[in-house]
């Protein structure tokens, strides 16, 4: 268990390299087994994780360039633990869902394994440079997945995805370097260690500019309005597996970045920017939900709904209290599970019919009852029905944000209305009513492969909806520690007031 | 009237500009070579002058290496010129332009 985090990060990479020599026919089996081992390791990590300890665990440290304080530094806490597990899970299920006749299966598996490495790496690294390395590397496999296995406009979508997010992260890099420079000025040594950075007290003015730099990197990834337009393109053109991983894990990197970098390092600026973030997030929530309603393509509905839900997550991150922040981290998980499953479901019907346009379907509930049921469960989780995974996070986020702004919460709360508007409209158009095309009458229901990929997600949706405690508790601990650290770290009195670790303490 | 470093540097600048004008103006490859030589020499003067001013030999060292580079450049360059001339029958740059974007 000593180097479990390194194993977690590099197992997929090593396996990916070995994957080049694997026989073509057994590539998928190879991918499934590697991803399964990875998931087992991640679960093992959870099993040996000390849930009462809010700090970093399993840390590993070895200097790379000691003159500049760049080191290989990884660790896990309650915030990152479950995102890593989710990334491993989604990758495994995504590979399982791959059709056996996928062209260039071997390359696909290798790309996915590399992608898994970068995803796990981003969430585990505690060194800014290592973080940035994985952050940028994650673009490459995704670029291939969209560009090689995508739809008709795949090259445009892939390039747009790449350049857009890349442009943002370059500014992020400048921010990180500036941060290291400031740290050097203050302490006389170079360090890119996040935990070191946490101890640095910056003036509000410095924080302001650093926040903007971080924001441009993270916000494009989230993606926040108005930087969201690459997402519908990427989703529209990506193959099913690409969309699944993109929505489930890659988007979370943005919000995770806010939690890991912006909040603890720049607490004053985070509070200063809260109204700004709130405004953008509210636009995201409402505007993109409306755009989702106008879509004709099923996948685009879910793509835009992703943006809308990410808005809720953003609101939770900037609620600055344990309820909202904890809720938003839980919502990251739940959105990962639910949107991943929804994209899988769209992929299933796309494979059968070759179309994603809702007008083409209708009455699918009668033809494919199991499919409709699974879709229905995910739909309900997506609109935040209690006792599904979607409710817990959404409820906590809205609850937490109410402390910040009542009006904002009511506006954000409209998500439960307009969210159900577009999701139910989608469901009605495709699943209800008479079957519109003769050829759709003969559609096969979910087969074993698809059920294997989807049923675990359904189980998780219900399990974490009814009993979220095993996940929520470590998150809550770490979130509280994060808030305490922010509070101690803040320079302005107003910031200290805005951050609420516990109400009892506030009184 | 004392001749200071500025004098040398200004001379070097003027000579460099002359070489520069040559590079820009000439269409004949051989003439371009000549102009390049002028520029290199101009730089050499500057190096020597600055070295002298600071009492440092590094300036002269660089001048040496520049001369060495110039010599090898001429050796290779002239070989290429001959081949070009044989192929096109001319050394006019406008005649031998092939890489139009």
């Amino acid at each position, binding site marked *: 268990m000593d180097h479990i985090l390194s194993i977690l990060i590099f197992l997929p990479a090593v396996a990916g390299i070995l994957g080049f020599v694997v026989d073509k026919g057994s590539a998928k089996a190879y991918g499934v087994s590697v991803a399964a081992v990875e998931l087992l390791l991640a679960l093992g990590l959870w099993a040996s994780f000390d849930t009462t300890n809010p700090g970093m665990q399993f840390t590993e440290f070895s200097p790379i360039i000691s003159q500049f304080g760049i080191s290989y530094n990884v660790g896990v806490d309650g915030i990152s633990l479950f995102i890593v597990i989710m990334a491993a899970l989604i990758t495994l299920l995504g590979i399982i869902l791959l059709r056996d006749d996928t062209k260039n299966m071997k390359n696909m598996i290798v790309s996915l394994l590399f992608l898994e490495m970068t995803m796990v790496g981003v969430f585990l690294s505690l060194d800014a440079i290592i973080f940035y390395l994985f952050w940028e590397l994650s673009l490459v496999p995704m670029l291939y997945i969209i560009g090689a296995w995508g739809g008709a406009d795949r090259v445009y979508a892939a390039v747009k995805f790449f350049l857009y997010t890349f442009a943002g992260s370059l500014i992020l890099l400048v921010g990180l370097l500036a941060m290291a420079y400031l740290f050097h000025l203050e302490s006389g040594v170079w360090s890119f260690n996040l935990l070191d950075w946490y101890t640095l007290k910056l003036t509000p003015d410095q924080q302001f500019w650093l926040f903007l730099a971080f924001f441009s990197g993270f916000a494009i990834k989230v993606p926040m309005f108005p930087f969201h337009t690459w997402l519908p393109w990427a989703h529209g053109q990506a193959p099913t597996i690409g969309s699944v991983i993109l929505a489930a894990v890659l988007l979370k990197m943005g919000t995770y970045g806010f939690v890991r970098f912006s909040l603890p390092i720049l607490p004053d600026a985070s509070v200063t920017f809260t109204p700004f973030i709130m405004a953008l997030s509210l636009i995201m929530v409402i505007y993109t939900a409306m755009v989702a309603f106008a879509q004709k393509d099923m996948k685009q509905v879910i793509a835009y709904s992703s943006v809308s839900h990410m808005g809720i997550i953003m609101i939770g991150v900037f609620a600055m209290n344990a309820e909202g922040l904890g809720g938003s981290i839980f919502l990251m998980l739940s959105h990962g599970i639910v949107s991943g499953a929804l994209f899988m479901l769209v992929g299933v019907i796309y494979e059968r019919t070759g179309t994603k346009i809702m007008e083409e379907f209708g009455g699918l509930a009668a033809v494919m009852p199991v499919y409709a049921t699974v879709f229905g469960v995910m739909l309900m989780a997506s609109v935040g029905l209690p006792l599904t995974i979607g409710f817990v996070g959404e409820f906590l986020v809205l609850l937490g944000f109410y402390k910040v702004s009542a009006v904002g919460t009511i506006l954000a709360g409209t998500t439960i209305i307009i969210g159900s508007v577009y999701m139910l409209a989608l469901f009605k158009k495709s699943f209800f009513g008479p079957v519109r095309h003769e050829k759709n009458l003969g559609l096969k229901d979910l087969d074993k492969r698809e059920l294997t990929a989807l049923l675990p997600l359904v189980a998780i949706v219900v399990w974490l909806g009814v009993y979220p405690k095993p996940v929520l508790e470590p998150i809550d601990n770490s979130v509280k520690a994060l808030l305490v650290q922010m509070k101690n770290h803040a320079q302005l009195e107003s910031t200290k007031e805005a951050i609420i670790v516990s109400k009892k303490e506030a009184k | 009237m004392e001749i200071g470093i500025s004098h*040398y540097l200004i001379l070097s600048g003027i000579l460099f500009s*002359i070489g520069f004008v040559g590079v820009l103006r000439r269409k004949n490859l051989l003439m371009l070579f000549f102009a390049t030589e002028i520029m290199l*020499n101009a730089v050499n003067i500057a190096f020597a002058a600055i070295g002298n001013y600071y009492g440092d030999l590094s300036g002269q060292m660089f001048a040496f290496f520049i001369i060495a580079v110039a010599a090898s450049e001429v050796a290779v360059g002239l070989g290429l010129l001959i081949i070009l001339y044989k192929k096109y029958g001319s050394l006019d740059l406008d005649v031998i332009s092939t890489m139009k974007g």
Partner: protein
Amino acid sequence: MYEFVAFYIFAIATTILFLITVMSKNVLYSMTSLAAGMVLISGLFFLLGADFLGVVQLIVYVGAIMALYAFAMMFFDATKDVKEKHGNSTLVFLLGGLMALVFVIMFSAPIIGENIQALYPVGLAENLGVSGNAQDVGLVLFTKYLVPFEVAALMLLVAMIAGIILAGKKMDYSLTECEASDEELQKEIKKEEA
């Protein structure tokens, strides 16, 4: 006073000679004035106390490089006037003039960085009991700049070989593009046969 006069003579002469090089339509004139300018530049080096450099300038530039040009000229038609287009010469002179102006401004501005110290000060060799520019140069060149010096030597060797290969062997054939000259050759052969 002596230095003053010598500098201005050399400076004005080199400027005029190089201007001739750049402006002249005849290759031979150009080359001759270039060679003359080089000689005068070595004079400047002597003025600057870089005796060894001045000698090298004379030997390498005037002796070797200009000779190389002169030999190369034999392959080209040197008597013909060089055709030049003067369409945008105003732009060229404007650029050149601007450049000269900028240099002049730059260099006549007070030199910043008075605290620069000499890494290898003149007179190093005096410690060893000998003196003179050549000795100084030798000392530095073969200690601090030994590796660059050897690399430069290697570069010259490579350049020499390259020059020989490019220009020397099989002067009748084109080495890069054979088709055109091959056809010509074959035509000539046919003519001879006929």
